[in-house]
């Protein structure tokens, strides 16, 4: 499976706005390129990313082929309570990759 890197602060104050950074290794093949013998390279794109905080969706993104390989996303959320933040990437074929991080809110 591909590798995903996530960066979530381990601790935060209640109601603090925290930055979350995610990076997943994926070629994001556009489908517009050809290989060295001229055959088209099939499209392979992560088309959806969802971030949930204790089961509640806080951020979602639709990605198109214009997103660079190894999609990087950074966004913010409010640290409301201790718990887990889950990440899910879905590609064209319906394959998903998940990652999660726990956060402690004081």
């Amino acid at each position, binding site marked *: 499976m591909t590798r995903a890197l996530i960066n979530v602060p381990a601790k935060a104050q209640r109601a603090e706005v925290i930055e979350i950074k995610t990076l997943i290794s994926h070629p994001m093949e*556009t489908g517009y*390129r050809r290989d060295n013998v001229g055959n088209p390279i099939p499209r392979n794109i992560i088309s959806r990313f969802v971030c949930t905080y204790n089961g509640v969706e806080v951020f979602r*993104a639709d990605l198109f082929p*214009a997103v660079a390989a190894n999609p990087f996303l950074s966004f913010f959320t409010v640290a409301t309570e201790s718990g887990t933040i889950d990440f899910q990437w879905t590609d064209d074929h319906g394959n998903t990759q998940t990652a999660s991080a726990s956060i402690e809110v004081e």
Partner: protein
Amino acid sequence: MDDNPQDTAATRRKFLATVGSFISSFAAAPTATVRPATATPASMASAIREVVGEAPVRQGKVKLDVPPLVENGNAVSLTVSVESPMTESEHVKSIHIFNEKNPQSNVTTFYLGPRGGRARVSSRIRLADSQKVVAIARLSDDSFWSDSVDVMVTLAACLEDLR
């Protein structure tokens, strides 16, 4: 002033002809390279219409940060931020990024909400040519705000072949 006006006229004609052929050789070049369906400013406008419908799109509130000159179009860092308190009653619903000249007009769409805390998102995108990148934000009152940046790209992405 001029001793021989006919001579200068001839030189000017010759000069214009040379410049003309120079320009047309440039214009002919892109047709020689194989290009899949290419987005155009018109297709970007229609992609934008699909999102905003008939609603007016106003300038302001949105700040799109893309370097004006990029060497490698394969990974262009992009940050978009929107002025918004991000409360239950007033927040950013979504941010849509469009481009003019990639094969497709859509780049990404980010969906945010009151839980976002701060309306700022960063990513890395591909740009196939020097072009305009547009960000449109939809606020909770369903108004649309936009910002655009003209980007110069030296090495294009998307269309290169593996050799």
